[in-house]
């Protein structure tokens, strides 16, 4: 395939400067960033944006936990508390997790891993970033101006009746949805048309496979959310009577619509985490992923099954027994591809050569935490047990183990792993590992206590609670502080690398992946000449010593000379 020779529209090569120059230094000035069509720069801008959102969502999480430290009023009143947990959920889901891996790391690495110069539609890529900014601004303005207290699920009829800025919030989410659709579309076309010679479907890196599965869901499911939110706005403006029972509507219909998107969205969130996990496990075990075809196919299976299980959020919501049975059965099917992935990752380490680098610690933590998140899903898929556990802290703990223990942990591991390639600077491994220890301990303390109080009967979204739950809430809140220390340490480690970090060589981790074959940081055109790929991205036994050479020795020799 000669896809690499397709002229790239926009900045490159005319406006992006020398295609062989370091992408960070090729052009300077604010406009060179604001109007860039370079997927790497857009990826970095996305990274900055979603990290800011993560910080905001995290602050609300800490405030929620702080309020729950003691019974009664601790720091804020009930209405403010309801806004805090709504904002925590909405920001984390719509502004952070959904765009985090695809839009930031995916944008940066998907074209490089395919040997392409850019994504298929670079200008659309920039548009999707600005749509994100607009959507995020609308969401944030509804924080400043309004009082959204519906929870991130906007369940009717409460969301139709409560006097607040639900409309601006949902419109913001509506715009964010377009950003998500455009990124997904871009990735699908890029994967189909811009693979370098030799990058066959079977040689495509598992990270790209994960991005591909995610993009499929984004394109197919997000429009349903858009329609649902528009209907919600129409209901509030015109009182049509779709969801509001007072007007003859059906509030349960909203839940169907909402979860028809939001359950596939769970896979928009977790499949990219799994995609990073596969890269980390392969690189730091120095061998190909065991059953990599099964890993790729299980991502696709999750993408498809994800569309068929939305009803498992509604087992006690007033659905028919038949629907309940069907959704329970389908839900159990999800366990199979998830299990296959975990087994394959673990089996990859067998007879590998395990490097205990900071990204690998996160990769192992992912297996630890995601296994807990996945197994606790069995409790919730089992109907009679779910009746007791649903809408309690057990569910809160379960999805945090999957979303944060899975996606966020993989995101942090991926950031540490690719940071040298993206910035050209090496972070301090010791500080990164210290940060990891705090994150791991803090996370487990925060959410393990939530499992126990949940199974004991503590409902979620409570401002105050009965005395028997206080010890668990205290443990959870203390855990959130330890977690915060870990996250700030990690953020500091990454930022410190920018001004104090050693120069990073081409392939600091000694990986066989395609993205490490190019410069650090990559040149504007990603590769100086079109790469011709003759082996898989994890074929350590086929890679030449030159390809696996980290480049540390050359850097050292250079610095001695200089």
């Amino acid at each position, binding site marked *: 395939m000669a896809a690499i020779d397709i002229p790239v529209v926009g900045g490159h090569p005319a406006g992006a400067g020398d295609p062989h120059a370091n992408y960070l230094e090729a052009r300077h000035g604010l406009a060179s960033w604001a109007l860039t069509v370079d997927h790497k720069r857009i990826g970095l801008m996305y990274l900055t944006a979603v990290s800011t959102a993560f910080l905001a969502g995290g602050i609300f999480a800490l405030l929620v936990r702080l309020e729950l430290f003691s019974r009664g009023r601790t720091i804020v009143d009930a209405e403010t508390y309801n806004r805090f947990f709504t904002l925590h959920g909405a920001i984390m889901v719509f502004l952070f997790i959904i765009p985090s891996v695809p839009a930031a790391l995916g944008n940066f690495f998907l074209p490089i891993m395919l040997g392409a110069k850019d994504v298929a539609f670079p200008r659309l890529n920039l548009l999707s970033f600005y749509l994100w900014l607009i959507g995020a601004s609308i969401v944030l303005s509804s924080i400043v101006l309004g009082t959204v207290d519906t929870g991130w699920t906007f369940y009717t009829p409460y969301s139709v009746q409560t006097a607040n800025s639900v409309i601006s919030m949902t419109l913001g989410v509506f715009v964010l949805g377009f950003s998500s659709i455009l990124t997904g579309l871009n990735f699908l076309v890029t994967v189909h048309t811009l693979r370098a010679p030799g990058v066959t479907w079977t040689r495509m890196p598992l990270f790209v496979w994960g991005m591909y599965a995610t993009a499929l869901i984004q394109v197919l499911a997000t429009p349903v959310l858009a329609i649902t939110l528009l209907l919600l706005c129409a209901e509030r403006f015109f009182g049509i009577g779709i969801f509001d029972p007072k007007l*003859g509507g*059906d509030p349960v219909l909203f839940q169907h619509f909402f979860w028809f998107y939001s359950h596939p969205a769970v896979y928009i969130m977790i499949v990219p985490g799994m995609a990073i996990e596969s890269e980390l496990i392969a690189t730091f075990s120095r*061998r190909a992923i065991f059953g990599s075809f099964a890993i790729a196919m299980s991502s696709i299976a999750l993408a498809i099954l994800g569309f068929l299980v939305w009803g498992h959020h509604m087992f006690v919501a007033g659905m028919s027994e038949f629907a309940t049975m069907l959704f329970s059965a389908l839900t159990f099917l999800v366990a199979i591809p998830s299990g296959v992935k975990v087994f394959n990752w673990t089996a990859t*380490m067998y007879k590998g050569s395990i490097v205990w680098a900071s990204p690998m610690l996160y990769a192992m933590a992912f297996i630890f935490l995601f296994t807990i998140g996945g197994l606790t899903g*069995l409790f919730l898929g089992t109907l009679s047990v779910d009746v007791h556990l649903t809408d309690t802290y057990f569910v809160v703990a379960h999805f945090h183990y999957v979303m944060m223990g899975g996606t966020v942990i993989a995101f942090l591991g991926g950031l540490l792993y690719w940071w040298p390639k993206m910035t050209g600077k090496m972070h301090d491994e010791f500080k990164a590992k210290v940060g990891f220890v705090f994150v791991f301990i803090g996370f487990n303390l925060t959410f393990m206590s939530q499992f126990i109080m949940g199974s004991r*009967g503590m409902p979620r979204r409570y401002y105050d609670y009965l005395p028997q739950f206080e010890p668990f809430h205290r443990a959870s809140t203390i855990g959130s502080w330890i977690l915060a220390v870990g996250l700030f340490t990690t953020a500091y480690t990454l930022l410190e690398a920018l001004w104090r970090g050693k120069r990073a060589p081409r392939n600091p981790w000694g990986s066989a992946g395609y993205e490490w074959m190019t410069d650090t940081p990559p040149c504007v055109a990603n590769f100086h000449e079109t790469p011709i790929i003759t082996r898989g991205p994890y074929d350590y036994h086929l890679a030449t010593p030159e390809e696996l050479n980290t480049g540390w020795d050359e850097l050292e020799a250079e610095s001695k000379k200089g």
Partner: protein
Amino acid sequence: MNEQNAPATYQLPPQMSTVAAEVDWLYYFIYWLSVVLFVAIVGAMIYWAIKYRERPGHKAEPTGHNLPLELAWTIAPIFILVFLFHKGFQGYLDMTIAPPNAIEIRVNAKQWSWEFVYPNGGSSDKLHVPVHKPVKLVMASADVLHSFFVPALRIKRDVVPGMYTTVWFEATQTGKDDIACAEYCGGRSEGPGGELPYEPTNDPDNPYVSGQMTGHWAMHSRVYVELQEDFDKFVKSIGDKCDAYRSEGKICPGEVAAAEGQKLSVSKGCVACHTTTGMRLVGPSWKDIWGKEESTDKGDVLVDENYIRESILAPQAKIVTGFQAVMPTFSGQISDPEIDELIAYIKSLK
């Protein structure tokens, strides 16, 4: 909690209903299954991470293929999953389908309180039920979504405005437990004079009352499982209050009066087409219709609260075999309490 309750395990509350033992057995089955799988996966991971750690002279072996192993761990879980699905669904049906002899208690949920109405028309804000008797709750919401949750009974069911949801249980011992709302339903903390004071208490019956700040969490009540004679005494005492009201010619608060339904059936014109004698007019007679399997163009339906409600608000949804689709909708012309009264009246015609 009462001492008579089966002791709480570390993870689960006391067992006070007939379904609790089965639910807990399944919970702990999944729990130990998870522990075994978790230890196997994470144990292997840590063991290999140490055993095969990178060191001079050690090299990774190229990854091979092992199709039997891959097939095994794809197929083996299916058996476990089918078993879990089967047990879970069986338990779910047990807690969904109420026995016909169940005592029926109405539950009215609103922001932010529960009200329980007993067969004799009396009502209370705490739920009293007899031990060893099946109890069926027919639940309605006046405003937004709520969810009726009693941890020790292992039951939970959303209360949805615009429809009736039901849940049933049979308590296995006397005692008390908390009733909680499990579906987020908002909150209020600003009063006319600014911020409202709030302080929780240690009184298990009223843990949140000492302030006026209220909301989802404060929608708390208690269930009292009593011996039959205590229950009868309680129901009679609230019934007596009702009798006092009735003797003054008023309706007992909370009572859904069949007599009011009868008046409505005249004032809304129902009787023009529906008799109460069994005679057939334009529409089916209401006599003995309650609880019947009615044959319609959409298949057989059970005549219950939801069916009657639908027939009033959306009469074209299901047409009884042998009748014309001529009834107009009463949507917007009849309130929820009025529908309840009509239902009570139709029930009384049995």
